[in-house]
């Protein structure tokens, strides 16, 4: 088994301690940071993400795999910068204003990051203006809004409106999710994409950004 295969397997099994040894080993062997990221860390994470999509893996497996992947990306971050690696795109993420439930949002963050997408986590109770400000200042490609309460769902529409008012609506794809959200609600508030779980969100985000790059 090559070191890269070992890295992928370690991520898949959530073995963060192994990653701490394997990534330096791969660097010593002459692998580039880009290779370690794509052929090792992300490959392992994608296996878990696919299994999650097929209901063969569950949140615990995803969380520990993401923890292992993050340990690896921490180690190669300086090298990635030196190599000029660019993430696939940039997203800002938060629970909408009035909503403090962040467990789902945090899982989305891990899954989206596992697609080599930079995520700016705005936390909970995020007002529309904060999303707008972040889109403008950070040049985000995606806005990811989460809500668990039916009372806070309308803030997703307010966020879309705020992006329109600021003149940046066309620059971003607005993705919405959370237990009470439906495709009909997504359409009604003028968001672009609804996904029903974190894995689907990460997959769609990746597709959208790849399409944007190749356009």
């Amino acid at each position: 088994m090559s070191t890269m295969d070992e890295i992928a397997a370690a991520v898949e099994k959530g073995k963060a301690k192994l990653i701490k040894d394997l990534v330096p080993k791969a660097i010593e062997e002459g692998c580039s940071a880009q290779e370690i990221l794509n052929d090792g860390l992300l490959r392992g994470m994608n296996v878990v993400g696919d299994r999650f999509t097929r209901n063969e893996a569950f949140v615990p497996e995803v969380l520990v795999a993401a923890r292992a992947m993050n340990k690896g990306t921490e180690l190669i971050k300086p090298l990635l910068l030196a190599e000029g690696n660019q993430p696939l795109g940039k997203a800002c993420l938060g629970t909408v204003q009035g909503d403090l439930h962040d467990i789902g949002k945090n899982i989305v963050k891990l899954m989206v990051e596992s697609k080599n997408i930079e995520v700016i986590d705005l936390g909970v109770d995020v007002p529309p203006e904060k999303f707008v400000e972040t889109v403008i200042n950070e040049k985000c490609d995606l806005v990811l809004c989460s809500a668990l309460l039916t009372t806070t769902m309308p803030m997703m529409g307010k966020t879309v409106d705020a992006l329109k008012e600021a003149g940046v609506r066309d620059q971003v794809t607005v993705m919405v999710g959370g237990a009470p959200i439906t495709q009909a609600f997504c359409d009604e508030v003028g968001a672009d994409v609804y996904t029903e779980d974190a894995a689907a969100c990460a997959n769609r985000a990746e597709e959208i950004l790849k399409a944007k790059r190749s356009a």
Partner: protein
Amino acid sequence: MPRSSMERYQKMLSLTPYAERDEMPVFPMMLATFGALGGVSQKDICNSPDKWIESVLKTIEIVGKPDVIMPVYPGDTIFLMGLPARIPGRELPDDALYQFIEKPYFDDPEEYEKILQMGWPAWNAKYLMDIQTPPFTDPGQLGARFGQFGANAAKTFGFVYSQGMVPDFDGACAPIFDTLSMARSMFDFTCDLMDDPGPIVDIMRKFQPGADEQTIGQVKANHGSRVGVYAMRSSSTFISPDMFEEIVWPVMKASIERFHAAGITYVLHADANWTPMMKYFTEVPRGSVHIELDGDTDIEQTYELLCGQQSIRGDVPATMLAYGTVDEVRAYCEKLIQMGMRGGFMLGSGCEIPLNAKPENVKAIVDSLRG
């Protein structure tokens, strides 16, 4: 032919087919929603059981009387939940819904060893003191708060019975597994389970029996026969089915059997997705568990699996109640009623009805059986 709410409830527990739809009990679950529908502020219903009772009476006038109701007012529910909370009128606007805050109470897995040494009752008491706002500094404060809860419960349970309704439970608890998940926070707890579940399992096995005995005493003191168990962290939304089978189920099964032996039904509030876990409830005595589903679990599949074995309640979706039409609610209820006529089914909402539910949609749930 059962006609009172208690008779309907007993009919449901008997797991026998309903001869008429009017025999089926209905439980549109509300707690804070009573304030919204009854025109009493969230601040008031969280601070005063009397104000909450006032809101219940006003709501019943609007949407009709349910058979089953939550018997504890929001202020005590928040206290008992075991998570730090933001409260309307304190950290939130007067009419906002209370919300729990997920943050780690302890950062080091070594805490599990401390729990094993201290014992669960002492550790849990300290935890409950520390998460109050402001934290309690004297155990006497906690005792006084439980005393206040007892006085409030006497009032709210008395109200429920005086109205001819059935309380959803006569005593309530969260399994130790779920309390630990909330105290440690979901991410860290999950990593602990994956890295080394041993100390967590040791705590559950050592202390859950004693915690159950304490709850049995609480239910018996209320002359009751049902315990509400809030075990949301044990669902497949949070843990894998393998973890459930290896870690949670052996302890939960023993708890169900312990309560059953004491003549107490285990009312499992099963928020989130329990679909892969439902098969295990065929392993415990018939009628020992009543399961409340919130829409994430496949209710049809569950009913097919458990029909004649355990009873279930569910699951009109929150989003439909807030944004749907009366016709949509009626159609959804009708589908559930037709499904549940073989017995052991209670028509209800999926978890709590949201604050912005349309009154006519809530009324449509009750009317679908009583209209």
